């Protein structure tokens, strides 16, 4: 009890630190960290708990960002409705990508999720009437949530923190539910799960839809915060960063990806690394995990199936 309380107090103090420090730069990083926590948790649900190597997270993120930008700029929608519709667009995208990809073998699942993301990037680049192509959409107005305008970095930080906390809480509840146990069972042994009467396809589709909703929410918040988006939001570098955050943080755990998101958003900023160098380093880190932590990776990703196939030491 006292230990739980200590952790809770430490978490609250840590969460309020950026405000106490008062530096706009620190707050900016903290806001972006919140978005990454949501995205990492979105991937964690599918990859960590579902055991599905999905590369579609940037698709959900990008759909959310474009939905928010278009609704706010073209139709002048208010923030609450926009965020809700953006999240619903994420659900729809999750189902649209999940439906064909979850029916095929696990190789083509990876390919289809990547291709779907690239296709959406292609659409964003070419459907110039709506997306303005590679010019992107600029001057996205600040949102009003339930009538309250979101202003200043402190306001944005509180919103980002609340959204991240809500997503972590929902993930916690979902994973502990009957649905979450079915998802993990299907990850650990698909045949056994099917034999036990679990509708594996529907369970995974639901996980995909939920993952789509949270990543799209992060995309909508990102679009509002940065006030400018372009087709780069669908970029593969988002997937790369998220894979590092989730796998190094500990995929299939609740707090691992949160820690991963905090560390891998803050670290490159603190070290002031250029984006190309950061991507290069992330690539090297990912390669090193695959080469030197393969047992851990197999446990995280494949569960029993991989362990059963492992060669005798």
């Amino acid at each position, binding site marked *: 009890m006292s230990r739980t309380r200590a952790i809770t107090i430490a978490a609250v103090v840590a969460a309020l630190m950026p405000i106490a420090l008062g530096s706009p730069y620190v707050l900016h990083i903290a806001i972006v960290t919140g978005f990454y926590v949501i995205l990492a948790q979105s991937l964690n649900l599918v990859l960590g708990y579902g055991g599905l190597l999905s590369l579609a997270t940037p698709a959900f993120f990008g759909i959310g960002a474009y939905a928010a930008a278009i609704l706010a700029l073209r139709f002048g929608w208010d923030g609450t409705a926009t965020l809700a519709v953006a999240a619903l667009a994420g659900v729809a995208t999750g189902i649209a990508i999940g439906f064909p990809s979850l029916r095929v073998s696990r190789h083509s699942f990876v390919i289809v999720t990547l291709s779907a993301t690239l296709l959406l990037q292609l659409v964003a680049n070419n459907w110039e009437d709506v997306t303005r192509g590679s010019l992107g959409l600029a001057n996205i107005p600040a949102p009003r949530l339930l009538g309250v305008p979101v202003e200043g970095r402190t306001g944005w930080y509180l919103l980002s923190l609340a959204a991240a906390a809500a997503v972590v809480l929902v993930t916690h509840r979902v994973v502990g539910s009957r649905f979450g146990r079915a998802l993990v069972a299907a990850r650990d042994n698909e045949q056994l799960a099917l034999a036990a009467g679990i509708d594996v396809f529907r369970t995974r589709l639901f996980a995909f839809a939920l993952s789509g909703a949270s990543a799209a929410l992060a995309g909508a918040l990102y679009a509002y915060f940065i006030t400018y988006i372009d087709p780069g939001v669908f970029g593969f570098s988002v997937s790369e960063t998220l894979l590092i955050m989730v796998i190094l943080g500990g995929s299939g755990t609740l707090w691992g990806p949160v820690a991963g998101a905090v560390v891998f958003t803050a670290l490159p900023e603190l070290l002031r690394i250029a984006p190309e160098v950061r991507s290069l380093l*992330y690539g090297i880190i990912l390669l090193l995990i695959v080469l030197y932590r393969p047992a851990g990776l197999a446990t995280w990703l494949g569960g029993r199936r991989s362990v059963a196939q492992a060669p005798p030491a």
Partner: protein
Amino acid sequence: MLTDPVFLAQLAANGVAVGLGYALAALGLALLFGILGQVNFAHGELYMLAAFALYWATQRLGLPYGAAAALTVALMAGAGAALAQVVIVPNLDRGFEPVILGTLAVAVILQNAVRLTFGATPLDVAAPFEGVTVDVGGVLLFGQRLAVCAAFVVAYAGLAAFLRFTAIGRAMRAMSQSRDACVMVGIDVRRVTRWTGALGAALAGLAGVAIAPLFDLYPNMGTEVVFKSFAVVIIGGMGNLAGSALAGLALGLAESFAGGLGSAVLRDGIGFAAMIVMLLLRPQGLFGRSVRV
């Protein structure tokens, strides 16, 4: 205009030329899946690397195009063997996720290393057939496109002969059927894996040196190619070399007619649409060849 036979013939000619380019680009990917059952997500980056190596060999070393192309393909074979040794060999018995993640990591490393080395400004590499145009009854055939078609024919025939007539080729075909049986009869599966990686990368390299002169060189040029190659390989039946060659040809023709009679977006999206339709209609059949008992 739309029913003008010369225009339609031109679209068909363009489609065949572009389609054989897709088939060439996808050949190495299909080979790796067919023999090893592994997806190489760095395939597009190998293509990109070959294009930049060609630029380096022609511009910096001052080699003529032919010599530079041969040097590039040889270097790519070495790079492919190294990639197979580092990423695929240690993970042969660990399912496919480690290889997917490992090749994704290599793709990211190559892309950013090239960006840091050559910069993000598009580069151009010249080839001897670039300016040549052949007029066949009003239908224009472009020299470099014909060179791509020739490269595909040579690569496909060479690969088929290699798989049929060499010891290592026969070992590769044996491995596509059963790795366990290969181990039992004393085939060095690691060596076969390195050879497969080398051949796959050499094919990506050949595609790079043949196709790159047609476009600008930039560090993420491989993404588009790998996107098309995945579509081709999935439509053609993964690991099925003849299938992906035909699918590449079909995709090139479909894109050419979609672009000529429809729009550019339709042209770029048609491959993905075909892939999705294929997956919905034949979700299991496509990978049937690769399932090991």
